[in-house]
């Protein structure tokens, strides 16, 4: 009797051993597969998670850093060439109307004054011989411009200035 039991328990042990051996093989397969996927970067989800983690860490650092002017930073987009553009265009050129050197970012307000909405500009125009013609055409174009560009209250604000 004891012999049979001995046999059985040693058989059990053997069977367990074989079984564990089989399971270990499958485990090794899984590990090898996952290792390959990981090293080759084939797991898109993994990358996405890593990328998101990285971005969130960066974003947190930016928010926490008090020296950052958040508003200008959001406008500092980087284009496909890797160049970043300042929010206010800084190039300087000559106004075709008055010939002065104007910063591009300030050109529109300059034109408003230079071409006709302002008091001083209107006064300049009346001095020329074709004054009324110019004034009419300018007013038309500036009206058109105002209709096209500004909200309803815009014209009044402009006239006040």
């Amino acid at each position: 009797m004891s012999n049979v039991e001995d046999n059985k328990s040693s058989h059990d042990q053997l069977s367990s051993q074989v079984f564990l051996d089989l399971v270990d093989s499958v485990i090794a397969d899984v590990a090898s597969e996952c290792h390959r996927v990981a090293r080759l970067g084939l797991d898109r989800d993994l990358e996405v998670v890593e990328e998101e983690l990285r971005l969130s860490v960066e974003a947190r650092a930016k928010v926490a850093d008090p020296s950052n002017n958040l508003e200008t930073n959001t406008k500092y987009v980087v284009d496909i060439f890797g160049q970043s553009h300042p929010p206010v265009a800084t190039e300087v050129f000559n106004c075709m109307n008055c010939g002065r050197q104007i910063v591009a970012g300030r050109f529109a307000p300059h034109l408003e004054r230079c071409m006709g909405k302002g008091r001083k500009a209107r006064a300049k125009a009346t001095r020329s011989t074709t004054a009324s013609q110019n004034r009419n055409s300018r007013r038309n174009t500036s009206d058109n411009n105002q209709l096209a560009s500004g909200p309803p209250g815009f014209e009044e604000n402009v006239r006040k200035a």
Partner: protein
Amino acid sequence: MARSVKHSANRPPTPDEDVRDSPERDELTLGEIINIKLVESGEKENLMELVRDRLVESGWKDEMRIACREHVKKKGRKDVTVDELIRVITPKGRASVPDAIKEELLDRIHNFIRSAAL
């Protein structure tokens, strides 16, 4: 003429088949004998296929893959080694085999051992 002597000619002579070798065969453990028989009869391959199918069906493999991914996330994907992954998932892997699968396999192995008349 010296040039025609190949390097292989310089190797030490193959040792003769020693009488000492054969007693070692008797010292093979029972487990090793079983393993040899399993392989030779093709049963090992059948069992491997069976185990793989069952473990995939039951979702065990997916669980293991998730565990691997977790570890890779922690360590960073460039640093992991296969050995490390095996080390990490083996305890969990062995423990989480569903009982039914384990029973089925042990049964078959038992039968094999009995029929191998040992």
